[in-house]
């Protein structure tokens, strides 16, 4: 909320408004109203997360539900409507919801340009404060330095800019040229945190066991009735996990035991650039072959390719011209994209499976999927 407010004040300050985008920004009381909407949206942005965040969201939520749709449900709930309505300047819940999750999650609702820019402050690929916040916080709590960048300089140089100098271009968030290095810092921090923390193989393995535990314990589905949903927190999960680890009759005993006794799955195969040149889905091929050979229970596959890069944004040069970030930053031009492909194996058959893979790897990877249907 604090970062969102800072970004808002900077991009709407009179001295920072580019003449080409001025008409997008409301004035007077309207501007004050939207600042409040943005603050509440930022505060509520993550309110719909399940315990332990993304761990088992896909598996536990019914079709069509996501943590973002739950965020919207909570923002628009009766209890919250009362709060929004009781504020000195009452706020409209649908506008808070729009800014909190962005159009990607509210596809059926039209966003005007101003709403799009404000939602970008929170969820934008390049400069979303949600990302700025989680990188800094996670970095601190994980005891790593990768997630740090100069947030103060970055926010101070954020601007609403046309995408290019051509007439008719839409307005988006960009930076003044002096902020380019801090923008590079943010995107590098993101790359490092994804590759070194969020997708670290041991962390992913624990996530898979947690996922299995939650599915087994909750019978495959988390309640989406808001009261029941909000009553389930990390604390309830940790208590149950501890019970399950000590109770062989508990449906979630096996994954809970693996977490509690650190007998987590290990990496059998991970993405290798030489393999990927032959088969971009090499991990899938290894996983399928391993399951065929040893059965499904001892293997898990994790595939993630980065979905948004955030490296392309307008940069305002000192003479007022707009250039593309990639044209002025070799760092951003060459920033790698996170590409993860792990096959995990249970520690019990790790040795045998490893030997088998060493013998079969080339042959397995050469098998591109044949089905063109």
């Amino acid at each position, binding site marked *: 909320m604090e970062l969102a407010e800072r970004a808002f004040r900077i991009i709407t300050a009179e001295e920072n408004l580019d003449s080409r985008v001025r008409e997008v920004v409301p004035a007077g009381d309207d501007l004050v109203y939207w600042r409040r909407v943005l603050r509440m949206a930022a505060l509520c942005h993550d309110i719909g997360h399940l315990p332990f965040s993304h761990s088992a969201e896909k598996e536990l939520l019914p079709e069509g539900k996501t943590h973002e749709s739950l965020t919207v449900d909570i923002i628009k709930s009766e209890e919250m409507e009362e709060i929004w309505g009781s504020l000195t300047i009452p706020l409209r819940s649908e506008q808070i919801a729009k800014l909190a999750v962005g159009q990607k999650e509210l596809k059926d609702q039209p966003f005007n340009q101003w709403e799009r820019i404000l939602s970008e402050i929170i969820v934008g690929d390049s400069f979303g404060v949600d990302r700025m916040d989680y990188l800094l916080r996670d970095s601190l709590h994980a005891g790593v330095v990768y997630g740090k960048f100069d947030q103060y300089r970055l926010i101070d140089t954020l601007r609403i800019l046309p995408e290019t100098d051509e007439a008719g271009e839409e307005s988006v968030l960009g930076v003044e040229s002096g902020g380019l290095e801090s923008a590079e810092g943010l995107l590098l921090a993101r790359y490092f945190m994804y590759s070194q923390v969020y997708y670290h193989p041991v962390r992913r393995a624990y996530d898979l066991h947690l996922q299995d535990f939650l599915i087994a314990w909750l019978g495959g589905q988390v309640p989406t009735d808001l009261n029941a949903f909000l009553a389930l927190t990390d604390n309830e999960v940790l208590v149950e996990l501890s019970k399950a680890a000590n109770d062989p009759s508990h449906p979630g005993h096996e994954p809970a035991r693996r977490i509690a006794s650190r007998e987590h799955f290990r990496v059998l195969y991970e993405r290798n650039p030489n393999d990927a040149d032959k088969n971009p889905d090499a991990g899938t091929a290894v996983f399928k072959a391993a399951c065929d050979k040893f059965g499904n229970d001892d293997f898990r596959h994790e595939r993630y390719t980065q979905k948004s890069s955030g490296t392309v944004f307008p940069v305002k040069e000192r003479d007022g011209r707009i250039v593309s970030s990639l044209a002025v930053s070799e760092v951003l031009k060459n920033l790698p*994209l996170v590409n993860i492909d792990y096959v995990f194996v249970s520690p019990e058959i790790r040795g045998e499976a490893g030997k088998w893979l060493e013998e079969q790897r080339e042959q397995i990877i050469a098998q591109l999927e044949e089905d063109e249907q």
Partner: protein
Amino acid sequence: MKRLQKASVLLSLIEEMRDRESWCGETNIQKATYFVQELTKVPLGFEFVLYRYGPYSFELTDELTALRADSILELEVRDPRYGPCFVPGKLRDLVIGRFQKTIGRFRERIDFVAEKLGNKKVAQLECLATALYVRLEKGCPKDTNKQAKRIVALKPHISEPSAARAVKEVESMFIEAEQLTEN
């Protein structure tokens, strides 16, 4: 369609667009893919909503990034004043070679869209793609003037004469595309 199969269609579309002098920035690809999927019925499975410069698919943006991560596509900076362009990556031959049947099946439709949109600028693409979006909306009026007005209501910076021209152009593309999809 499977992921790499879809990638082969996107790669072919990008190559055909480039051959026709398209800038091949993300907006060009977004709008061309919208026409390929919605007008010529190639089942790519992207969900389009009215967003930046008209119909836009968040899933397609994600997929274009993921294809870069897999070296199937790359970004190239051609002119500092504009955004980057998409070009085939080092795994281009592997993917194109592998999905010849798929590409063959949709070749005419890809060529058709590239021919119609390849030389268009972003503003023209926005106008045409929004015209197609309006044409596909439930309860779209038959009256072309009303269609043009609807485009202007959705995108107020588009002038009514431009919208009217786009409605006509999309209508004639519809007739041509019907023959393609019947083949």
